Structures are given as C-alpha cells and as structure tokens.
C-alpha cells in the first residue's frame, strides 16, 4: 500500500466505482419492492377473483308463476304436492311457448328452464298452511345455466341495439325478413370485429317477446328463423341483436332457451333478487337451490367440540409447562414435541383420526364430534404456544409479590398470574379456532365430505363443514358452482375476519406494558 494511493479517494475512479455501487444499491432496494409488490398483487388477484365470483352469486333470477294452491294442498304427501306444483309450472311454460311444446324434445327443453326440485320449497310452504285456497303468486329460481346466461357469464356476447326496421314473415311462415337501408351495417361491423359470421355462431335479434335467429345477413337486409314469438312483433320498434360468440354445441344453454328467458323477462316475470337461499338452504345437487346452512351449522358444532377440548387443555398445559414443569428431559421432550406438532402436516392428523377415533374407538363417521376432536389435537400446539407467550409476558414481580404474602404456587398462578395472562391466552385461542375453521384436509379423511342434506342437530349427527363444502362445490364440473363457491368462501372469510377483528380488539383493549 503506497502512501500515494491515498489520493484515490475522491478521484474519478472512486466516484465511478461509487456510482456503480449506488446503482447496485438502488437495484437491491427495487428487488425488495418488487417482492412485496408481487405478494400484494397475488393477494389482490385472489381476493378480486373470489369477490367477483361471489358478487355474481349474490343475486339470482327467479320467475313468477300463478299456482292453484288448493290443488297443491289437496295432494296426499309432499312428493305429490311437489309434482302438482311442478306440473302447474310446466303447464304455464308450455302455454307461454306453444311452438316448442309440440314435441317431447321441445317440452323437455322448455321444462329445463326451471328444475323440478326448485318447486319443493313452494310445495312445502303451501302444505304447511292448508287453509290456503285459490291462486297464489310464487317465484321459482331459473335453472343455473339460464341464470348464468342472464348474468352474462355463460358465453361472451356482443349486444347491439338498432331499428326500427321493416319486418315481414318469410314465405314458409317459419321465419322473418328484416329490411332497412344500412340498418345492419353496425351489426356487420361488430361481427367482423369478432371474426364471427352467421353460419358459425348465433345471431339473435329480439323484439318484444319474439326472437329470431339470423341465417343471412347483409347491410340492408337480414333473414332468419323464428325461435320464439311471432313475426309481427318485429315491425316498427327498437330491436336488440345479440351475437353469442360460442356455438350452441359448446354451451349448456340453447338459443331457444335464451329466447324464452328473454321473453319471460320482457313480460316482467323474471326478476333478479338477492340470493338468500345461499344462507337458508342446505346442500343440493342443483346449484340454484344449494345453500350453506348445513355446513355453517356443521362448522359451528365442530368448532364447539374443538373449543371445549383444545382451549382448556391448551391453557392448563401451558400453565404446567411455564409455571410448574421442572427442567428435566421429560419436559424438554414435551417442549420439542409441541413445537414439532405445530408443524406436522394437517393431513397426518386426519390419518390419526381415521385410525384411532374411527378405527379403534368406533366413533361415528362424518360427525362433528370426531372432526372437533381431530381439529382440537391439531390446534392444541398453537394454543399452548400462544398461552405460554402470554404467561411469559407476566413479570416475575407479580409472582414474587404473591408468594411473599404466603400464597401457594397454585394460588399464585390461579389468583394472580392467570387473570393477567388471560387476554393473551384468549387471543391465542381465537387464532387457533380460526385455523381450525379453515382446515379441510383432516375432515376429508374422517368422512365429513359426505353429501349432507339435513341440518345436523348435534355433534353426533352426520355433518359437513364450510371448507369442505367449498372443496366439494369447487370440484363440481358445472360452471354455475363457481360463483356459488366464491360466495361460500366469502362467508367463511367473513367468519375469519370477525375472529381476527376480535383478536385485534382484545389486543388493543388489554395491551399492557410492564
């Protein structure tokens, strides 16, 4: 090191080097920002996708019908009443769409607008009040596919309002010819933008209650076959064209069903209403009828079992380990063991439950009692670790003060230390319960994934749980389950948020600095 080299400080070389180092410094900082940005963006994307699904499921479409209540009440049993209601609903629909009702296939297509089971709540309600006679106005949910279409989620489509144009029936009486100078230019422009033409995808033009599917389209003239209503309805009124950018064969809802639903809507018989049945119904095979009530009750019962076991045992165990345990091999073994248990995969607890609670003890399958026991063992380490931290935070001066006035160790702990540690223990317990509420895998192994149609009345009944319901709905093939799943996730998250808010509140209220 020559003394002359000292001059390299502040020289151009040092400054150049420093510029490079500063650039590296800034880059490093940006990596950190990018990492946090990535994590936050992932969370935002997750929440946004679930919210958008749930939002779509928050409302659904119902159709109103007029039902002769007297004939329903007269039915022998519930299934008779169900048949009566559904028969009347179908008759009503056949009457509204007579063209399609001539063939068995057409009748089936019309009937698919409303599923049979959708009539069950009406049938039960009417039978419950036999005094009812005469015509009743009732609302039934539209089938999931049609509902999804009306919400704009079934297929991508382009909607163009145009008209009025001249309309005349075609020679065979099955179709309509619409004409007007340049009237269809916008429609053609929109279609070419989407690379769509009338032979591949459906071009539906609706006027009032009637809809025509186009077979030929030019700038001045369009021709197509009627799929609902009459040709006379198209003349001299505003029309609406829909280009549905998926061929019929790739959709679960047909052009005719779309036309009928639009006709019912034009009649004012289809309304979009809040989807309360999501909270008041139990699980169903039909998405529009399914609800989470049984799962909510099941989760509640499971957590009840979990809480009544894990919280007292966890707190007492933490008291032993923190206040009484001698420092020996056994207690250090327990300690390592608890820390390790907290990191054991949850599915292993499911295996334990399946082998011991179901296999050895013969407890009932699919029951909240077993689910609760398994989850209690699962969150026990969480509760113990949190409770120990709370006990550790109580300063020794409290213990020494109590011992100095002649209290026994047990009295010291239960009279003085425990009350001070209680808020911390409580927050740990709530966090443990929140973990138990979201846990799915162990419940699958003890059979809580079974389809449960009845609300469980006790911890010994068959039941499902919210996360398991999410799992079984999410893995269904039909598209309509997606928004429903999103909605149930939102219910689950609402419970979790409530629990965490409680924790934050408790921490804030009882925060103590020693």
């Amino acid at each position: 090191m020559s003394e002359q080299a000292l001059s390299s400080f502040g020289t151009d070389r040092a400054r150049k080097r420093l510029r490079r180092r500063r650039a590296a410094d800034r880059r490093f900082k940006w990596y950190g920002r990018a990492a946090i940005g990535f994590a936050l963006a992932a969370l935002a994307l997750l929440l946004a996708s679930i919210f958008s699904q749930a939002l779509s499921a928050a409302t659904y479409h119902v159709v109103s019908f007029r039902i002769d209540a007297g004939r329903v009440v007269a039915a022998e049993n519930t299934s008779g009443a169900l048949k009566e209601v559904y028969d009347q609903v179908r008759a009503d629909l056949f009457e509204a769409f007579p063209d399609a009702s001539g063939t068995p296939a057409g009748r089936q297509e019309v009937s698919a607008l409303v599923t049979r089971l959708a009539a069950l709540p009406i049938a039960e309600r009417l039978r419950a009040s036999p005094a009812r006679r005469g015509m009743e106005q009732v609302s039934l949910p539209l089938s999931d596919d049609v509902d999804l279409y009306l919400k704009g989620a079934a297929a991508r489509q382009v909607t163009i309002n145009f008209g009025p144009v001249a309309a005349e029936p075609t020679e065979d009486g099955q179709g309509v010819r619409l004409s007007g100078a340049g009237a269809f230019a916008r429609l053609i422009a929109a279609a070419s933008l989407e690379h769509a033409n009338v032979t591949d995808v459906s071009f539906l033009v609706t006027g009032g209650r009637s809809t025509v599917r186009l077979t030929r389209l030019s700038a001045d003239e369009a021709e197509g076959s009627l799929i609902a209503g009459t040709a006379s309805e198209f003349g001299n009124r505003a029309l609406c064209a829909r280009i549905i950018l998926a061929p019929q064969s790739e959709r679960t809802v047909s052009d005719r069903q779309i036309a009928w639903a639009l006709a019912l809507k034009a009649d004012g018989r289809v309304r979009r209403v809040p989807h309360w049945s999501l909270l008041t119904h139990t699980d169903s095979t039909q998405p529009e009828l399914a609800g989470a009530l049984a799962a909510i009750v099941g989760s509640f019962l499971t957590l009840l079992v979990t809480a009544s076991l894990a919280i007292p045992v966890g707190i007492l165990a933490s008291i032993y380990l923190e206040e009484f345990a001698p420092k020996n091999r056994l207690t250090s073994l327990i300690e390592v063991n608890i820390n390790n248990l907290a990191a054991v995969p949850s599915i292993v607890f499911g295996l334990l439950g399946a082998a011991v609670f179901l296999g050895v003890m013969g407890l009932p399958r699919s029951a909240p009692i077993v689910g609760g026991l398994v989850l209690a063992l699962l969150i026990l380490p969480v509760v113990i670790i949190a409770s120990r931290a709370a006990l550790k935070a109580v300063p020794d001066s409290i213990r020494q003060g109590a011992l100095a006035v002649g209290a026994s160790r047990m009295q010291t702990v239960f009279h003085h230390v425990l009350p001070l540690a209680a808020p911390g223990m409580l927050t740990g317990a709530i966090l443990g319960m929140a973990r138990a509420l979201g846990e799915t895998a162990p419940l699958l192994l003890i059979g809580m994934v079974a389809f449960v149609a009845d609300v469980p009345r006790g911890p010994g009944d068959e039941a499902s749980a919210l996360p398991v319901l999410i799992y079984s709905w999410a893995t269904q093939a039909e598209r309509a389950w997606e928004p429903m799943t999103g909605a149930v996730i939102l219910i689950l998250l609402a419970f979790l948020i409530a629990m965490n808010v409680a924790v934050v509140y408790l921490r804030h209220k009882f925060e103590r600095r020693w």
Partner: protein
Amino acid sequence: MDGSAAGNEVVVTPEPAGTLALGDAPRMDCRNVNVFYSGKQAIFDVSLPIPDRSVTALIGPSGCGKSTFLRCLNRMNDTIEGCRVEGEIIMDGKDINSPVIDPVLLRSRVGMVFQKPNPFPKTIYENIAYGPRIHGLAQGREDLDEIVEKCLKRAGLWEEVKDRLTVPGTSLSGGQQQRLCIARAIAVRPEVILMDEPCSALDPIATARIEELIDDLRKRYCIVIVTHSMQQAARVSQRAAFFHLGKLVEMGDTDQIFTSPRDRRTEDYITGRFG
C-alpha cells in the same frame, strides 16, 4: 479545496509524538451543530474544531450527547430513523452534511470504532479485507494480503494472529477483537478515526494496549475519542472537549482542561462531584 484536491493535500510524514499543530487549519471544523431525535433536541449549537494528527477527547457525564456528536462526524446518524442534524461540519472546505457528499465516501475517509467490539462473523482476514474490497483499493490478491498484514501490524495484532488468519474474528478475545476492529477501520485508509468508548468493554490490560495503539496511531491520523474515563482522556488525548446536557461547555488543551478548567461545571465533573 475540492474533494479531489483534498486527497493530494494529505502528505503523511511521521511527526514526533506530542507536537501539536494547533495553528494549522483544523482537520474537521464543526460549526453550530444541532441534533434532533424525532423532534427532541440532543445537541445544542456545538462548535468544535478538530485538529489533525492529535487525539481529541470528548468527555462528559453519560447522556450528555458526546456519542451523538461523534456519530455526526461520519454521518452514522443517517442510519437512525427520525434523526436530523443541523449546522455545518467542514472537512476539506466542504460541509459533510451537504447532499452532494455521499456518506459512503465520507465514511471511507472518517472511520469508526465502536464501544463493543463488533467484528463481522467472518475470518480475521475477511474482516480486514472487506473494506478495501468494497472500495476497490486492492488490485489483486497480493495487494490485499499486503493491506491486511500492514493493518494488522499497525493495530499491533499481527504477531498474535498471523498464523490463524482464517479463524473467525469472533473467536478472538475482547481486546484482540477491538484491535481487529481498529485494523478494519484503518484498512480503508481513513484520515480521521472516531472511537466511541473503545475500551469500555475491555479489561485493564487490554485497555492499556489499546491506549498505546491510539497514541501510536496519532502520528498518522486525526483521532476523536469519546470516553467516560477522566484518566483515559488525560492519558491519550492532547485536546479535550467537555459536554454537558448536549452543550459544549469547554474545550482546550487536555492539560489546561484538567489543571485549570475555566468553567465551574467542568471543574465539578473532573473532580468527581457529579458524573
């Protein structure tokens, strides 16, 4: 004088110990320095010239702000959230607090040794080589070896560790660790070395060795030392500044401060009436 010229200004010629060039321009000149910690003022209007090639001791009761003041001299206070420094600290004609001065460059010229020895959890060799490496002071491996050896020799540690340069720096004794930290500080060729109570964590024998070392280093560097020990200040320093409640009460030659203090508080402190 601008920064690039400043380097050439430094001509290191060993001077006989004890001669004080007090008439020369000070190496660092602090003018009206105020320091605030998240709004609370810790240093009040301190003006203190620091002469080159001598040891300046900052003394005073604990909590008087001497360490805070010391940390201003190489902008270590930048790393503390909510800390604000006002006033001018002139080095080579430039205010070191001005935004155009990069603290990294400043700290390579103003090194620091801390209260508790804090060797990096690396080998002894790497501890010394770290600074030269990040500043690009060594051309190659031999160059670096040379720097390490030279610095260890200057810190009086070479004989003790030359055979075990690859053991972790943390495995040395406390006094050795502190000398390693001093070697680490001089490896980046600073002009000023700040020492924040460098002996407070050491036993008397280790302290004596460090004090010897400080006296030796004074020939090449401008040294500012914070100490709570009157005796140490008297032993190692030529200049002394007495701080009290964040204010500079009195400064002058160490002999003068200790034998005929001008201020009553200084006298009370050095005679042990408070502190």
